[in-house]
C-alpha cells in the first residue's frame, strides 16, 4: 500500500517546527507502524535528508518509549495498542496520516516526534515509592493482600508511562498517569505508610510541572495502550482529598522526626 504522511519536523527544542509531507511507498501490511517509519527513514537517508526522529525501544508494547499522535489519536486508531505494536493492516491504501508529537507544556519537543517526558519521572520521584527495610528477604505471604486489592493494584501497575493519557487529554492533564501510580501503591498493604503523603506530593508535583486539571471526560482511558480505567483517577481524588483533610503538618514537639 501507499500512504501520504504529514510529519511534524522540528530540528531541536529551540527551533520552530512545521508539518512536512512524505510519501510512504510499497508499505507491507505486516509491518508495524515504526517499521514503516524505518523504511521511510531509509529512503530519507538515501536522499541525504534528515531521518524522522521517533523514540522506541522494546517494540513489543511494554517499555513505554514509543508514542506519537496518528491522525489526532495517541498511538493511532487501534485501542489498547502502542504505536510499535500497531500494524499497517489497520490502514487503507492511499490514506493520509498526520503524525505529531505529544503536545503539552510539560512535554517539550526535543526533536520531531520525540518529547522530554522527564516530568513524569519527577512525579514518581515526588512520592511514587514505598519504604522497605533492607536486609534479609521478608517471608513470602507474611503480609496478606486481599485479592481485590491485588487486582486493582495490578491493573494500575500496567502503566508503562508512555504519556498517551497526557497527549489525548484536552487539558494535557497527567491525571491518569498519576492516578495509576497512586493506585498501584496505595491499594496494597505495603503502600499504606506513605499513602497520604504520596497522594499530596505527587499531585502537587503534577501542578508544578504545568500539567492541566482533569475534567473527567475520558479521552485518556480511550488512548491508554494498557487500558487503565479512569477509576484510577477517582482513587487518586479520594486519596488526595482524604489526605488534604487529614494532614496535620509538622508536630510542634515530641514525635520521632
Amino acid at each position, binding site marked *: 500500500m501507499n500512504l501520504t504522511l504529514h510529519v511534524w519536523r522540528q530540528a531541536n527544542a529551540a527551533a520552530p517546527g512545521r508539518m512536512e509531507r512524505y510519501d510512504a511507498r510499497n508499505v507491507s501490511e505486516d509491518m508495524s507502524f515504526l517499521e514503516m517509519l524505518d523504511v521511510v527513514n531509509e529512503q530519507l537517508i538515501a536522499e541525504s535528508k534528515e531521518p524522522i526522529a521517533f523514540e522506541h525501544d522494546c517494540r513489543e508494547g511494554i517499555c513505554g518509549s514509543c508514542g506519537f499522535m496518528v491522525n489526532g489519536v495517541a498511538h493511532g486508531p487501534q485501542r489498547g495498542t502502542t504505536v510499535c505494536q500497531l500494524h499497517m493492516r489497520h490502514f487503507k491504501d492511499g490514506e493520509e496520516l*498526520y503524525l*505529531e508529537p505529544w503536545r503539552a*507544556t510539560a512535554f517539550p519537543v526535543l526533536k520531531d516526534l520525540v518529547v522530554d517526558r522527564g516530568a513524569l519521572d519527577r512525579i514518581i520521584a515526588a512520592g511514587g515509592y514505598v519504604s522497605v527495610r533492607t536486609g534479609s528477604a521478608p517471608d513470602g505471604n507474611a503480609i496478606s493482600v486481599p485479592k481485590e486489592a491485588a487486582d486493582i493494584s495490578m491493573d494500575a501497575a500496567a502503566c508503562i508511562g508512555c504519556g498517551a493519557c497526557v497527549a489525548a487529554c484536552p487539558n494535557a492533564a497527567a491525571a491518569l498517569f498519576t492516578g495509576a501510580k497512586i493506585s498501584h501503591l496505595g491499594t496494597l498493604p505495603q503502600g499504606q505508610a506513605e499513602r497520604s503523603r504520596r497522594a*499530596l506530593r505527587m499531585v502537587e508535583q503534577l501542578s508544578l510541572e*504545568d500539567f492541566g486539571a482533569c475534567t473527567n471526560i475520558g479521552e485518556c482511558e480511550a488512548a491508554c495502550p494498557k487500558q487503565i480505567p479512569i477509576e484510577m483517577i477517582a482513587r487518586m481524588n479520594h486519596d*488526595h482529598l482524604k489526605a488534604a483533610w487529614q*494532614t496535620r503538618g509538622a508536630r510542634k514537639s515530641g514525635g520521632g522526626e
Partner: protein
Amino acid sequence: MSTAALAPPNSARSLFSSVIVKKAIMAATGAALYLFVTVHLLGNLQVFLGPEAINTYAAKLKSIPEILWGARLGLLTLVGLHILTTIQLMKINSKARPVAYAKKANSASTAASRTMYLSGPTIAAFIVYHLLHLTVGSAHPQFSETDVYSNIVFGFRVWWVSAAYLVAMALLCTHLSHGVQSMFQSLGFNHPKHTPRIKKFAHAVGLIYFAGFASMPLAALSGFLPPFFERL
C-alpha cells in the same frame, strides 16, 4: 535519614492550590446547585395545577424574608464559587497545551463534557436575564409582584423569550448530564458496577429535566395554559 523528600507538605497551601481540591469544590457546589434546580423545577411545575397553587407556593416562599434572603445569598455564593473555581482551572488548563494539534480526534468524550465551557457561561447569562424577567420583573412587560402564574404565562407568550429559554434549558440540561456524573468522579467515587448506572442516571436527568422545563413555555405558547383573565 534525609527528611528533605519526606517533609510534610504545607497543609494550607496544598489544600487550596490543589487542582483536585478545586475539582471537589466544583463538584460540591455543582451538587448543591443541581438540588436547587430540582426543587425549582418541581416548584414551578405547579403552574399546571393552576394560578392558585403556584401563587400560594410563591407567597409561602417569600413569607419569611430571612429564609428567602438566606437562600438567595447561599445560591449566589454557590454560583460564585462554581464560576471562580472554573476560571482558576481554565487558567491552569490553558497553560498546559500551548501548541494545538494540527489534527485531533475525540475518541471517548461526550459532546456534553466537551462543551461545559460553553454551556456554563450561557447558563450564567441566562440566570441574570431570568432574574430580571421573573424575579425582579424589570425585563417583563406585565410584571406582577404577587401573580406568579400570569407572569409565567404572559412572559412565555412572547415567542423569542420562550425560544431563548428553551436554548438555555437545553444547555443547562447538557451541563447537568455531564456534571451530575462528573461530580462523583471528582469526589473520588468510581466503581465498575455503580458508575455506569450513575452515568445513565445523569443522562436521564438531562432529558427529563429538559422535558420538564420545556413544558412550561410550550404550554404557554400553545395556549394550553389559559391566561385566567377573570382572576386578574
